[in-house]
């Protein structure tokens, strides 16, 4: 399995003075003294080859009065990863060294940890709140921070209908709404300027004073701009049409997935994961199920494994067709290419609906298996689609698009991300593989039964918009190959290894489960304390972390191309903001 093991690399031997092996039962990895973090991280990257920092997150251990920052690093050459942590005493503002100088991919994730947990990373180039707005009171993921509608620490809640009277959270709140203000808040004296810090950060750029002295203008695109794929916003400074400075602004769809997830029971989180990357709900289910199964130490049945792989690959086909269609939409082809992808996607959604009962929010995976067996004719339908229709249709769509003049001129050589930069910025999925790095978790660190199938890791060399689009076509073909093999080999048997339960028992410990989702590496970091709900529930969201590379890719480009670059990254805001 993919969990980092301390045996892979002996860090304590290399740094005996300030690295110690994790001793808590159920935990893995290394604990590093905060003051020496940069030194150890540099050695990890340069000596041990852990060049890819996948996930950074914090955990609030309130009973132990400790805050922890957890890092997961991997090698882009493949193999299991390594987990390391730093621990600090719990205070109002906890200080920790920033890893951005060693791994620039930590930038947005550290900002998130600052925003939600109040861990201040010294040495971070631009430490502002990211999901909430500047000026928000408190750090919501801390265990002692209660939201305005707080009822109880864990679900399921007590009866809300005692004696026939409905108790509503609104009625208990003094404002009749989801609002709470600090003591002594006076609206008439208060200042409301959440944008100031953003604009200050945006204005920190180097100007090359060559030629004409032009005026720079600040433009806000989003959060309701039609090209931003939802409620993403970018603030840019333009010199004519050229971007000189850009900051992504997010959080407009921050719906507190992690805070709610830490209150839910384990199974209750499954439908919430559907709503992360809502174009690929089956992959999200997959990653979450893997993480919890790792904690519970159970293995799904054979048939369930095959069904899972088929569903995950069908999701990838549907997602990539959508992504290609939307990229073309951003390039100005309006709705037509979208309709071609959409037509095929609807056929897959029909199968999802037959299998799980819902078109988009499948909620299909369970710990140890899947929720229900395939209906009678589903296998036949999948066979028809994946052996006859899709191979033909994908060729057709590619033929329509790949030689198109507009796509070639606007795509080739635009928004280039070099392979080295892609690794440095922790880019994942198609963004990484289009830059020449053949890193696919299904091959690099196989999970489930992916080691049984024949498929190629799609890779392209130029790292531009055109390559990202063509890479998605290639991945669709490979997914079709996997589904073809899986549906042929689909065994008979039970679909779940354990008796289905509403409240599962999860032993204390931590686990990091990851899959190669359509957008990239989707990981779930879960800490259990043996109770019915997770102590910490963190999502390593590929769309969010891929946006770290968005700023360096866009600077120097024309504003119209920035729209295309964003389209080629393929973000989904439910996952960016969570």
């Amino acid at each position, binding site marked *: 399995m993919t969990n980092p093991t301390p045996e892979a690399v002996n860090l304590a031997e290399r740094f005996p003075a300030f690295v110690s092996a994790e001793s808590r039962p159920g935990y893995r990895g290394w604990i590093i003294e905060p003051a020496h973090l940069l030194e150890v991280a540099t050695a990890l990257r340069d000596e041990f080859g852990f060049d890819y920092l996948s996930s950074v997150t914090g955990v609030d251990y309130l009973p132990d009065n400790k805050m922890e920052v957890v890092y997961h690093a991997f090698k882009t050459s493949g193999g299991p990863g390594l987990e390391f942590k730093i621990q600090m005493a719990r205070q109002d503002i906890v200080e920790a060294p920033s890893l951005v100088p060693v791994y620039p991919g930590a930038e947005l994730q550290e900002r998130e940890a600052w925003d939600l947990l109040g861990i201040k990373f010294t040495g971070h180039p631009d430490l502002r709140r990211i999901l909430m707005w500047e000026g928000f009171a408190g750090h919501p993921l801390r265990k002692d921070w209660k939201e305005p509608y*707080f009822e109880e620490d864990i679900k399921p809640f007590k009866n809300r209908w005692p004696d026939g009277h409905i108790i509503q959270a609104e009625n208990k709140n003094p404002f009749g709404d989801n609002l709470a203000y600090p003591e002594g808040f006076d609206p008439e004296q208060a*200042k409301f300027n959440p944008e100031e810090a953003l604009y200050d950060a945006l204005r920190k750029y180097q100007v090359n004073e060559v030629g004409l002295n032009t005026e720079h203008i600040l433009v806000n695109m989003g959060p309701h701009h039609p090209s931003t794929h*939802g409620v993403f916003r970018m603030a840019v400074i333009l010199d004519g049409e050229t971007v000189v400075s850009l900051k992504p602004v997010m959080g407009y769809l921050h719906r507190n997935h992690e805070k709610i997830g830490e209150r839910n029971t384990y199974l209750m989180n499954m439908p919430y994961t559907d709503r992360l990357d809502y174009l690929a709900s089956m992959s999200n289910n997959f990653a979450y199920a893997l993480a919890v199964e790792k904690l519970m130490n159970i293995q799904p049945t054979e048939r369930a494994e095959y069904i899972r792989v088929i569903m995950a690959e069908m999701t990838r086909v549907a997602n990539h067709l959508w992504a290609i269609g939307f990229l073309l939409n951003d390039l100005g082809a309006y709705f037509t290419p979208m309709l071609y992808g959409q037509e095929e996607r609807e056929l897959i959604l029909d199968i999802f609906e037959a299998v799980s009962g819902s*078109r988009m929010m499948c909620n299909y995976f369970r710990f140890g298996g899947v929720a229900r067996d395939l209906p009678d004719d589903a296998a036949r339908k999948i066979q028809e689609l994946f052996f006859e229709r899709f191979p033909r249709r994908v060729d057709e769509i590619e033929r329509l698009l790949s030689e198109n003049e507009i796509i070639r001129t606007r795509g080739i050589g635009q928004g280039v991300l070099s392979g080295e930069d892609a690794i440095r910025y922790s880019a994942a999925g198609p963004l990484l593989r289009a830059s020449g790095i053949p890193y696919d978790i299904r091959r690099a660190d196989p999970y489930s039964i992916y080691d049984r199938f024949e498929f190629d890791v799609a890779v392209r060399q130029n790292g531009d918009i055109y390559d990202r689009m063509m890479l998605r076509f290639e991945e669709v073909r490979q997914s079709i190959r996997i589904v073809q093999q899986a549906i042929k080999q689909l065994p008979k048997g039970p679909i779940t290894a354990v008796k289905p339960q509403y409240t599962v028992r999860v032993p204390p410990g931590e686990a990091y489960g990851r899959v190669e989702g359509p957008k990239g590496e989707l990981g779930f970091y879960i800490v259990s304390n043996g109770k019915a709900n997770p102590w910490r529930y963190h999502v390593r969201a590929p769309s969010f972390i891929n946006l770290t590379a968005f700023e360096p890719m866009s600077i120097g480009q024309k504003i119209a191309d920035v729209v295309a670059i964003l389209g080629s990254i393929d973000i989904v805001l439910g996952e960016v903001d969570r």
Partner: protein
Amino acid sequence: MEEQDLNSPGYEIPAEMQSAVAVTSLDRIYNWGRRASVWPMMFGLACCAIEMICTAASRFDLSRFGMEIMRPSPRQSDLMIVSGTVTKKMIPTIVRLYNQMPEPKYVLAMGACASGGGPFKEGYNVVSGVDKFVPVDVYVPGCPPTPQALLFGLMKIQEKITGQRWKDTRWYQKGADQVSIPVPLLGPDLFDPRKIPLFKNPKA
């Protein structure tokens, strides 16, 4: 007026002119035009936006209802489909967009989140329903509603339009001005200027 009466207005039209002349009321023909050319605003919030796009695409084909022209600008749109979770960070923008839409305007809350907070209601950054800030005409339940459900909601909007008369509808009256909802502000928490009185004497 009942549907039956509208279809037989009570005027005799000579047989030879029946192919060229029809008698109807001004409201009826005006609403017929409005109903068949509702322009929704093109902005999506969350998961429901994906189903909204599916509704607009070929399989469910929104253009059958004259609604395929989604305008990115609020100044050109009649209908705001609030498709997804409304967050505290987003609500100032939504209120501003609503204020910028010209009358007559309609709001459709699509899905559980936009109607009342949905599964994310308890979240610290989630507004429990867009109707806390803007008036909603039609609620469409579901998480997300299927395209068929959205189409049904849009037909309800059409029904509502059909039933309106310019004699007694507010925005056709003399001196009626645009409704302007005060834009909420982002402070230590979302701050709604309409709630200032509550700060002086809060409820229990």
